[in-house]
């Protein structure tokens, strides 16, 4: 019985997988593409950053302007990520758990910041809050500067990182039925208890995944932030903007040194993502 089924498998093998040479060729082409488009630029960042030696590298990344850019980048992420986590969980809950008219439209609109050019995102904020914007004069009269200042940069960051958490949490919630929450309710739990004790533990990995992606984009955003920043050195520059400034001044070693910090952040992001994915594979049989 066994022998006959394995010989049947053997007879079918050519129809079920490619010849070994084809397999090797496909792997080689795919990896060459990856090396050409992804690995080469990544390697270039680090070789260029260290071209003038480790001392020059350390000097470049400890410039006061770089340090203030680092702070601003951290502030942006620290504001944008928690806000978008709160939004993402609420939106995913509303869309996954209830039926209401306009649900599909809402679902599509959440994706909007992904499909709008970052330049347009930044620009629309400056039309709203800039000197000639709709609300600009009001804020100016109250002594608040938004565009070409830190609040504008934070707002632009919130805009472009808006969908990340919602996009990760929604499919997980949709895949789960609400019977556990309903059981908790019938046992007398209150709304917040249900959320914290039943729902949150089941979506925590998706939330974490969203946080990682959201954070990477928040720290790396360039186009939208560039429009509203005004490029005031040491004041309204984030790390990606600092990269551009140094590059435009032909300080390539400096630009790549700052870029290497952002690349390290990207690598940490990828590693965290991979770990979470491997973990999810273990949990799900």
């Amino acid at each position, binding site marked *: 019985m066994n022998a006959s089924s394995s010989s049947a498998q053997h007879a079918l093998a050519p129809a079920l997988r490619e010849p070994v040479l084809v397999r090797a060729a496909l792997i080689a082409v795919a990896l060459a593409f990856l090396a050409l488009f992804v690995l080469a630029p990544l390697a270039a960042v680090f070789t260029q950053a260290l071209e003038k030696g480790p001392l020059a590298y350390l000097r470049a990344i400890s410039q006061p302007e770089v340090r203030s850019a680092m702070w601003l980048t951290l502030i942006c992420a620290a504001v944008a990520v928690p806000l978008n986590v709160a939004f993402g969980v609420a939106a995913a809950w509303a869309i996954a758990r*209830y039926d209401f008219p306009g649900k599909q439209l809402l679902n*599509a609109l959440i994706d909007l910041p992904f499909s*709008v050019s970052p330049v*347009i995102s930044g620009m629309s904020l400056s039309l709203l809050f800039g000197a000639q914007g709709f609300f600009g004069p009001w804020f100016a009269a109250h002594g608040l500067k938004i565009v070409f200042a830190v609040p504008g940069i934070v707002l632009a960051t919130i805009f472009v990182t808006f969908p990340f958490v919602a996009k990760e949490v929604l499919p997980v919630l949709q895949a789960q039925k609400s019977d556990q929450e309903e059981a908790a309710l019938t046992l007398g739990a209150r709304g917040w208890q249900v959320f914290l004790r039943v729902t949150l533990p089941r979506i925590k990995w998706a939330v974490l995944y969203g946080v990682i992606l959201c954070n990477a984009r928040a720290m790396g955003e360039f186009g939208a932030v*560039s429009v509203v920043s005004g490029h005031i050195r040491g004041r309204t520059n984030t790390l990606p903007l600092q990269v551009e400034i140094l590059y435009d001044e032909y300080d390539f070693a400096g630009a790549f040194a700052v870029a290497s910090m952002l690349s390290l952040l990207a690598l940490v992001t990828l590693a965290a993502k*991979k770990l979470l994915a491997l973990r999810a594979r273990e949990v799900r049989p």
Partner: protein
Amino acid sequence: MRSVVTAIRKLTRRRGILPGFRLTLGFTVLYLSLVVLLPLGALVLRSMQLSWAQFAAAVSGPRALAAYKLSFLASLLGALINLVFGSLLAWVLTRYRFPGKELADALVDLPFALPTAVAGIALTAVYAEHGFIGRHLVANGIQVAFAPAGVVVALTFVGLPFVVRTVQPVLLDLDPALEEAAAVLGAGRLRILARVIAPAILPALLSGFALSFARALGEYGSVVFISGNMPLKTEIVPLLIFTRLEQYDVGGATAIAVVMLAGSFVLLFGIHAIGMVARRRPARSEVLG
């Protein structure tokens, strides 16, 4: 008046026994409106302050037309390259075993994680005249950096993960029994690829392609460094908008931005439609199975 009130009541009545409908939906709609819809509304409103003649002049000048053409064609080409190599990568990563596979899989996401400005200067370093790939290309008379080809390279880079990440899960979920059944019935490998596997991954391929194309159209950071930004030659639409803004031509910038925004809307709803069709209609292979 009363009918409006009852309509609102009807809309916001409790649904099911789960609490939090009004709270979560209210917060979602409020936050979405404040953060996204209000600014984009300001953009549309500002463009309406232009006269029709001003609007038409801004969106149809030779520089704008050249930018639309470059943005559209370079994004299309980038998305096509990603369609071919992205599906190949997805196939190789799901079907074969080879050393370094997990690493390659992780690297696919690099374009998502790497800030676009970093990608821009890194790609320029690699593909410019003295770069370690550009050197060989220039020696053979192929100019990539500071030419339209550079725009395509950058847009391919930013769109790379989309096709891989939409096709990969579909390939993983594909039931091996389908292929075995086809083999038992006498189909050869190519026939199985064309008639069993291709129809199953087609919706995913389409949505990966569309996502990659949409992302490429709006991309700014990685392109501005490698393209050289020459008006009429290597100037993409987002850069043209930025340039108009810096020249204090807010009206011109707004007009072009509205044209682009309309394109994004069409793409966004197209992508959602593809996704919904793909979910509703079982893949053809399932029907066969």
